[in-house]
């Protein structure tokens, strides 16, 4: 029993990383109909930025603001810095290509992805970097036979809070309605007086920013970061996005959490080496039987 519970908890933790990254994919897809292949690399960039802040002059930030303060500083720094990179990316690489259709956009996104990955390598070097143990809290909370580390609890709470806020903003506020309207029909939204430019700016800030934050959390949780890690997480989160239903924010969250669980239980009860094969098989099966993802809405093609 406790094993299953532990697996569940681990699945949810890794799932919340996926969910946070998937949100960025989904939001960007909503406004631009673009699979942003560079998104995983923004996540990696976030974890490198957080790392840099935390080790900066021998952990000065953590010493000044305490353990949790240092963490908060790293998270916020990555949030804003990666958000700005996201906006820059949209301006430089996507906006000028957008009018030419979707396929050139995809190539542009692949280009940005290659560029970012190699930029990280050029700046921080190809070596693996490790978040120092001294900047991360390491308590374990035990309730009888049930254990949870403070970092795990922190990640779960923070990502759920973030998702709730986002859910509220997108589903319940006027601004959220404007975002959803833009996602549904950009031209119509423009005609109704929605500032699509502003929405796009917001999305390209928030999506990458959340990914960057997830990068820092990931670095703190596992401590080890590398410049190639973006691709793996990017692919998984993208899978999660499609699994839930692309362009739909609650669906991205659900897809992320679900994928985390599928991976955990797949590795535990089927085979560790084959688990990604099963993950992709499940994805393909779902798409065959529910082509719009689990809770994506069916959009009938206008004939």
């Amino acid at each position: 029993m406790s094993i299953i519970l532990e697996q569940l908890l681990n699945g949810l933790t890794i799932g919340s990383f996926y969910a946070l990254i998937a949100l960025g994919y989904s939001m960007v897809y909503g406004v631009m109909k673009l699979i942003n292949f560079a998104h995983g690399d923004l996540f990696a960039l976030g974890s490198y930025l957080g790392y840099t802040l935390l080790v900066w002059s021998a952990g000065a930030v953590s010493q000044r603001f305490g353990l949790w303060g240092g963490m908060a500083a790293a998270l916020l720094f990555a949030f804003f810095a990666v958000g700005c990179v996201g906006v820059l990316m949209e301006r430089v690489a996507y906006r000028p290509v957008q009018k030419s259709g979707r396929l050139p956009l995809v190539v542009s996104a692949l280009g940005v992805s290659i560029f970012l990955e190699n930029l990280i390598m050029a700046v921080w070097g190809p070596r693996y970097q490790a978040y120092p143990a001294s900047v991360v809290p390491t308590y374990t909370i035990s309730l009888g036979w049930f254990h949870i580390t403070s970092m795990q609890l922190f990640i779960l709470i923070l990502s759920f809070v973030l998702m709730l806020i986002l859910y509220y903003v997108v589903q319940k506020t006027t601004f959220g309605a404007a975002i959803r309207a833009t996602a549904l029909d950009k031209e119509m939204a423009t005609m109704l007086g929605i500032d699509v430019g502003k929405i796009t700016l917001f999305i390209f800030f928030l999506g990458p920013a959340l990914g960057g934050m997830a990068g820092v959390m990931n670095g703190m949780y596992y401590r080890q970061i590398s410049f190639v890690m973006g691709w793996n997480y990017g692919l998984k989160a993208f899978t999660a996005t499609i699994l839930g239903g692309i362009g739909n924010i609650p669906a991205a969250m659900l897809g992320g959490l679900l994928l985390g669980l599928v991976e955990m239980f797949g590795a535990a009860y089927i085979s560790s080496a084959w688990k990604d094969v099963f993950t992709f098989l499940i994805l393909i099966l779902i798409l065959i039987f529910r082509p719009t993802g689990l809770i994506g809405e069916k959009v009938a093609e206008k004939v």
Partner: protein
Amino acid sequence: MNKRHKRSQLILGMVIALFLAFPFFSNFYWIDVAFFFGVYALLGLSLNIVLGETGLFDLGHAAFYAIGAYITAILNTLYGIPIVWLIPLSALCAGIFAYIVTSPIIHLRGDYLCIVTIGIGEIVRLALINNPFGLTGGPNGITGIGRPSFGLFAIDTSIRFYFYVWIILAIVILGLVRLQRSRIGRAWNYLREDEIAAEMSGIDVRHFKLLSFVLGAALAGVAGNIYASKLMIVSPDTFTFMESSMLFCIVMLGGLGSIPGSILGAGIITVFPEIFRVVANYRMLFFGGALVLAMIFRPGGLWPRKREIAIPNVRSAEEAEEMIRPVAVDQTRTTAKQSLNGETSSFEKHILVTDKLTMKFGGLVAVKDLDLVVGHGKITSIIGPNGAGKTTVFNVVTGIYKPVSGKVYFEGKDITGFKPHKVASLGIARTFQNIRLFPGLTCVENIMAGLHHRMSSYVFSSIMRTESQILEEKWAIETAMYWLDKTGLAGLSDELAKNLPYGKQKLLELARALSSSPKLLILDEPSSGLNDKETEDLMIFLENLLDEMDLSILLIEHDMNLVMGISHWVVAMDMGIKIAEGRPQDIYNNSRVIEAYLGREE
């Protein structure tokens, strides 16, 4: 024209001469680079079939490449089968593999297809690493693969490999160019440009999508074979997502559906990183940046395909008409006309009959228990306010939607639930409310879509240019020219459809529908967007058609002048229900119809 032709031939000759001479004044390193250029050109061309010609979003193409390479490696190392024999076998296996894995997912569109192909690519790579049945050698891969040889002549040096791959490439290019300019290549392009319009023109979507995957995979399999025999080792780290992305970039850099473009793209992808070897650590950084820049400044690719149809012996319009007539109007159909005069069953009088047709979307009932009858040789109109379910009726009849209940009979045959291309090939052609042309194709090519299902040449005959295929092509082009003429678009044959003004686009769509010599023509608001004069012309045109060919027409129209002017029978619908039908003047005065349009008078 002729001068240009000569000059491009001269340049082609120079390029070939340079390629031939190249290995003799270069070193092995650049010869090997040129070899891989050739392999990537093959791969680029193979993906170009899927992504470029057919517009299928394939980001897992390395899987097919891997299958070819591993089949070669396994069969050569285990059973000693010579590499050269394995070329067709690798192609076959990769093709079969593609057929098996893509047939359940071929209906997916755009990004969903993209993620599934990524998934397939990853599954294949992971499976290779996990060494199923001890066949793939796990992460180490398979070593000790032999070299290709033709009798005593072994391909074992860099120079020989260079010629080997480029000769194969030349053959492949020749085949692909022919395929591109055939019924098959056009069918793929129609799918890329507008799937629904293609389907309604009689193209079997599923079949041609699968065909493009299978052919693309087979070609990638050939590339895999060549790759394996050159390196003498295959290992999973060659067939990564990165490799698939690179192939994707090759096609996009060159230009969708452009054969020289794909080759140029392959050249850039292989040569670019080599030139930048000097800055080792940063070369991929530059590469990523260059991809973005290329898409900003040349989004259509560096060498996009120029569309032009080679017209064999252009005849004068009259001559063409002479020639086309007997073909365009099918002889067999005269029997139907004759029987009109005699004793006939109701199905012979009514070309289309629907029986209690019902269509729902979720909870919304769009059409309810509709009985519709279209008289043979007559013009029948459906009128009704917006949202009455008129277009839905068309979509059900033409097979785009499957009805919830009820039947559709065409010429007495139950065609309920038939796929659109099947419906089209039975003799129903249609136009759309919002014009659906193939915007990136020329007018002639647009019209030739309607002829697709009346042609029969396939891959082999197209590549071999058999006599029957040449004749068929000639017939198709001339028929298309005839209809172009007939609809008043003469002289626009090589113009891209998207460059036409609105009114001409409507005519082009009509020409496309007519070119298939339909028995029933379904027109969805043919006069919308036309001015009075144009509407008038259209009416005359339609009435003339009825006299000239054995044709029945079903149309949706809001323009009452047109409806009342040419219809033999009018059906009025409101809220999915037929509220009245009869001769035009009866309907014109029918109180329920007036009520539906104007609201109930208090």
